[in-house]
């Protein structure tokens, strides 16, 4: 996979992009995590780990601003996320379990619709992105005729054109074949090298040197660096 969007290194930054202070989340009368504090620095890949039900998905959704019902502080570039929601949303890309692909539309139309609210991207770039995820020749086939893995790749094509510095990727490796996983690993690494920050949950073993780990567990939270 080859990224289409190459950022120019104008703004040099070393302060944390996203900072969580004392996050606590309770669900159905059960505390998922408490006193969870961490910083996401530019140029890092962080893997959120933990057994099923430890709150990995919930954490990512909280960071993305989808879930309410938590307490603590979330800061974007040093200021509260709540006060600059639109700026934050413009700089954050979230891919969830459900990737946001309409089965009635073609990969091309899906990608175009997903980018429509973010930044103008030419169709040429979009089709290059689709080719980059191995969907060459499928650009104009309705997504419902594609396999689960191919549909997932449509969503991943977004990563090839994304300019958001922060990526929150929830179980993106699901239904992706071995080659795809390798390519995606390379992509994440490349993104980190460009200065982007990636937070990822997965049950795959990732072979990424220098990867950070954020471990959620029933017995409490450890933040390993």
């Amino acid at each position, binding site marked *: 996979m080859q990224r289409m969007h190459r950022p120019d290194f104008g703004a040099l930054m070393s302060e944390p992009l996203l900072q969580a202070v004392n996050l606590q989340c309770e669900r159905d009368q059960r505390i998922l995590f408490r006193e969870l504090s961490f910083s996401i620095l530019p140029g890092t890949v962080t893997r959120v780990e933990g057994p099923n039900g430890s709150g990995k998905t919930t954490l990512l959704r909280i960071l993305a601003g989808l879930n309410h019902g938590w307490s603590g502080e979330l800061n974007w570039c040093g200021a509260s996320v709540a006060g600059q929601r639109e700026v934050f949303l*413009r700089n954050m890309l979230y891919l969830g379990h*459900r990737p946001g692909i*309409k089965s009635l539309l073609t990969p091309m139309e899906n990608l175009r619709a997903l980018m*429509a*609210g973010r930044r103008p991207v030419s169709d040429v770039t979009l089709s290059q992105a689709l080719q980059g995820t191995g969907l060459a020749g499928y650009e104009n086939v309705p997504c419902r005729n594609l396999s689960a893995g191919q549909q997932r790749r449509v969503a991943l094509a977004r990563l090839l054109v994304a*300019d958001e510095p922060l990526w929150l990727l929830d179980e993106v490796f699901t239904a992706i074949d071995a080659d795809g996983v390798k390519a995606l690993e390379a992509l994440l690494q490349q993104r*980190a*090298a460009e200065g982007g920050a990636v937070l990822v949950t997965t049950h795959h073993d990732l072979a990424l040197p220098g990867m950070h780990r954020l471990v959620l567990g029933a017995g409490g939270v450890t933040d390993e660096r």
Partner: protein
Amino acid sequence: MNAKAPPAVQLAGSSVGVLAAMKGVFARDMKVAFRQRQDLLNPLLFFIMVVTLFPLGVSPEVSFLREAGAGILWVAALLSVLLSLDHLFRHDFDDGTLEQLVLQPQPLFLLILAKTMAHWMLTGLPLVILTPVLGVMVHLDGNSIAVLCLTLLIGTPVLSLIGAIGAALTLGLRSAGVLLSLLIIPLYIPVLIFGTGTVAAAAEGATVGAYLALMGAFLMLAVTLAPFAAAAALKISLSNG
């Protein structure tokens, strides 16, 4: 970590304008709807069938139909819109499109306004277009049919807008369809009253300008307030996921 200097990243620039984003949402909904044309026809068929039930179930007499016709058509239109509301957010919710919509950097209520407009174009507008035919079938006179079409033209967007609140509130719940009707029907009552009342006034020869203006005020109120409520409701419903 490697010992290199911290890498640099540039923050993303300003996002697409609100209008362009709304257009994107609208265009996608229209495109999806036209890929699944059967779903577009269903509320229309339902509309026709409900109207058919009244002459069969109550009386085919011209005098009855002429008096009740506007009410029958309004109730049938209301029910058809109600029937279609369940789909307004459901598919988007199931495939994750809704999450992406909420995470777009533009104000959510405007994006919802775009979605609701698409919903109206796909359900309300066809109902209005079909109304003259059914109006003739229930023996309404020409003037009444014209006024009825006007009230539906102003009223059905209100139905879609208020309905969007209900659809957002019941998103992802069991038996959402029935619950949606329970929540929304009481809120539809004023529109129904003024819709049919205007036609009745026209039939008695009164001028209807004031009534239509009042319905226009309803529409303005719904356009300005309903998307906010629907956006708040949508965020709450998504928070469960």
